[in-house]
């Protein structure tokens, strides 16, 4: 297991579209493990592979401590409602902004054994699904932010 370097906004790699995983090799599994470790070490609740420089459609999320979700080739199949969120990103350190995200989403993906899995996420988990899957298409939350928060608004 290795802690990986997290790329920061301004790095071109964050703006690229990632490629789907066509075969889950031991290397892919190592990458997933390393991503989980990196996310936890950085106190994040989600991390996408392009954030560590690898242009692959892989996401790890831990919106609730101890509940690690690993997604390979994730897709949002349903989205409903709307919710105003406070959003941050490990690639945009120290900054937060207000975004609008769906209240509830359904995500379909592969797990590490190659089985199709489906997750229903509401509130923070729905937000995390959207945020991380956006990374796979080169999108950052600062592209859709309604306004960034000033430091004095953060407590």
């Amino acid at each position, binding site marked *: 297991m290795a802690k990986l370097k997290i790329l920061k906004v301004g790095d071109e790699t964050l703006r690229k579209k990632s490629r789907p995983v066509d075969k889950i090799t031991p290397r892919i599994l190592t990458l997933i493990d390393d991503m989980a470790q990196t996310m936890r070490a950085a106190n994040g609740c989600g991390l996408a592979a392009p954030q560590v420089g690898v*242009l692959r459609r892989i996401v790890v999320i831990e919106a609730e401590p101890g509940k690690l979700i690993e997604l390979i080739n994730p897709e949002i199949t349903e989205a409903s409602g709307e919710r105003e969120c406070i959003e941050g990103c490990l690639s945009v350190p120290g900054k937060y902004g207000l975004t609008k995200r769906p209240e509830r989403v359904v995500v379909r993906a592969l797990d590490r054994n190659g089985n199709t899995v489906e997750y229903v996420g509401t509130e923070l988990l729905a937000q995390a699904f959207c945020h991380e899957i956006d990374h796979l298409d080169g999108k950052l939350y600062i592209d859709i932010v309604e306004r960034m928060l000033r430091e004095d608004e953060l407590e």
Partner: protein
Amino acid sequence: MPRKLAYEILKKIENNGQYSNIAIDSALKGSGLEKYDRALASTIVLGVIERRITLDYIIKKILKNFDKTDKNILIILRIGLYQMMFLDRIPTYAAVNETVRLAPKKFAGLVNAVLRTYERQKDKIDYPNENTDIYGYLSVKYSFPEEICHKFTDIYGTVRTKNIFEIFNRPSKTALRINTLKVGVDEYIRELGARNIDYEPSGYLPYIVMVNGCDVESLPGFEEGEFFVQDTASALCVEALGAEESDFLIDSCACPGSKSFGSAILMNNKGLIYSCDLHQSKLGLIDAGADRLGIGIIETMRKDGGVFDISLEGKADKVLCDVPCSGFGVIGKKPEIRYKKLSDTEKLPDIQYRILENCSRYVKNGGTLVYSTCTVIPEENLLNIERFLASHKDFALCDFNAGGLASKGGILELAPDINDTDGFFICKMKKIN
């Protein structure tokens, strides 16, 4: 003992068709010999393979029934003669005595007689005449099959062929590509200096250094992934390809992986590289290498470079076709390549063309396609490019600079006598709309 080991290794190569580098590596590791003896054993093995034509020419002059002589006795004779002819630091009596001991008792007299006859008559042996039989002359003097002498003379002329053969027969240095993801060039060179290891810069690329010997695992920073083995020519090919951060790159014939590794370093370990090869068994070496080097963006996959994968059509920023080839540019490192029959290499141009044509379809508009070989045969190089460009108007040659060398209209041919690298062919093309 080192001669005994050399004898065992040569028997394995001769009788089981093992590759010299693999046979040497595996035998030396378990030998328990001291460093000096290991070096001598490996020098003898490589030397006997390299000089076989010369050695056999002389043995045939002395030993009348060469063809009926036991194969293993011939190996012993070559080992003895090689030391006498080419290893100045070994006195003749030592070479003879130690070699005679390798032979079974009933052949000891024969081995002794042949070696001592050579010592007595070495100035009287008649060699092919340069003026009347140039190919025979080159063949015996440099130990290359006549058809290879013919081929090289066609390409380079006699004078350059002699120089190139001379260089191929010199002990080759090992080139290290410093992994600048992990360590600075200056810092690594200081590490070599601190361990009293002699090195030379490559002359073209700051991150390549040349060292003696081939026991790279004992060099500083091996475990830590601070370098990998890559000849300057191969590194220049990586420069020509010019991978950049966040590229998607396909290395279609990637094993043993050094061009993928070099590209990943140029990409600063950001983006994605598909390192493909036909042989699953070799892909594990790339995975292990990438792990050692701390490279995360390489994914290995088993793929035939000549078979179309629609999911990759028009997807890659850069595609490298470092196709399987006759290898006549790397004879300096792999001495047995010289004994390949030209007739066995005749099918290669078509195989190479099929890979080039197929993989060209993976290049996106505006993307880069590099075709390379480690050979000097025009049919495998320029002629394949001409054939490709004639029927693919969506590709154009693209001039480049690599390590201070300028390509000629997108093509760079490296030769051992001029560039002090392996013989190598690099062609860079762009896909135009």
